[in-house]
């Protein structure tokens, strides 16, 4: 269809990183529709065929500048598929502008759990120590 796709690089597949019993996916910058669908397939396979039962999947979207209804659907479907396989999905690090836009768009993604960043996501899955006891500001009450 595209007559001449000029010099745009072909979308590279998104890497899926295994951290013990958690899968970590880091999305950044421009994500082509094809790469997003590819990721959806990859994750479904990794979750289903993983050696041990997985604690969860963490998708870091702190480097993503926009989430439109297409990517929103992909994320929701990843979470739904993971949940069928008894695995939790945590969406980490959504930027404020992206969150405002999604809400305005009418997309609230009730499926996946959300976290401020990857660290918070991991502790939510019970992977890392709950960053100890939070210390009150200016020492003491």
């Amino acid at each position, binding site marked *: 269809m*595209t*007559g001449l796709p000029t010099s*745009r690089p072909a979308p590279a597949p998104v890497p899926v990183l295994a951290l013990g019993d958690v899968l970590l996916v880091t999305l950044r910058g*421009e994500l082509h529709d094809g790469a997003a669908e590819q990721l959806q397939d990859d994750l479904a396979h990794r979750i289903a065929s993983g050696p041990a039962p997985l604690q969860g999947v963490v998708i870091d979207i702190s480097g993503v500048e*926009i*989430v439109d209804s297409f990517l929103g659907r992909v994320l929701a479907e990843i979470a739904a598929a993971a949940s069928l396989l008894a695995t939790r999905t945590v969406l980490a690090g959504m930027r404020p*502008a992206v969150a*405002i836009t999604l809400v305005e768009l*009418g997309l609230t993604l009730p499926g996946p759990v959300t976290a401020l960043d990857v660290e918070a996501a991991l502790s939510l899955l019970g992977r890392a120590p709950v960053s100890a006891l939070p210390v009150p500001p200016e020492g003491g009450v």
Partner: protein
Amino acid sequence: MHAPSASASAATTRLHIGSDADLAWVRHEVRQAAAGLGFSLVQQTKLVTAASELARNTLVHGGGGHVEMTHLEDGAGRGLRLAFTDEGPGIPDPELAMTDGYTSGGGLGLGLSGAKRLVQEFTLDSRPGRGTTVTITDWTTVLPAARTGGS
């Protein structure tokens, strides 16, 4: 064809929409233009997201087409107009197509109605069998003069 309310400076860019990669390119170009005009980060994000929805409509439902990007000026305000045009089958019932949840393929059915909520001006012009043009415009305003958020 269009009767722009404000003077359109000569800067009109036309981008082809024929593939996935083109969608990414449209997003990139709209982002650059919006940032260049001084839109706030939130406004940029909304506009790029709306452009992504509409470009995908053009690709998926219209069988490809193009978008025309025009810089506008109206007094102190500056704006960006995006017109997405295809020569696809058209939309038989625009009112139905604007309803949340209505979908004719793939997405969450938020494409048109969602895009409309993200921008200040939105017009849909479609003739069955003749194609569709969706035009959106956003302005740089310090205060969005108490716009009520649609719906």
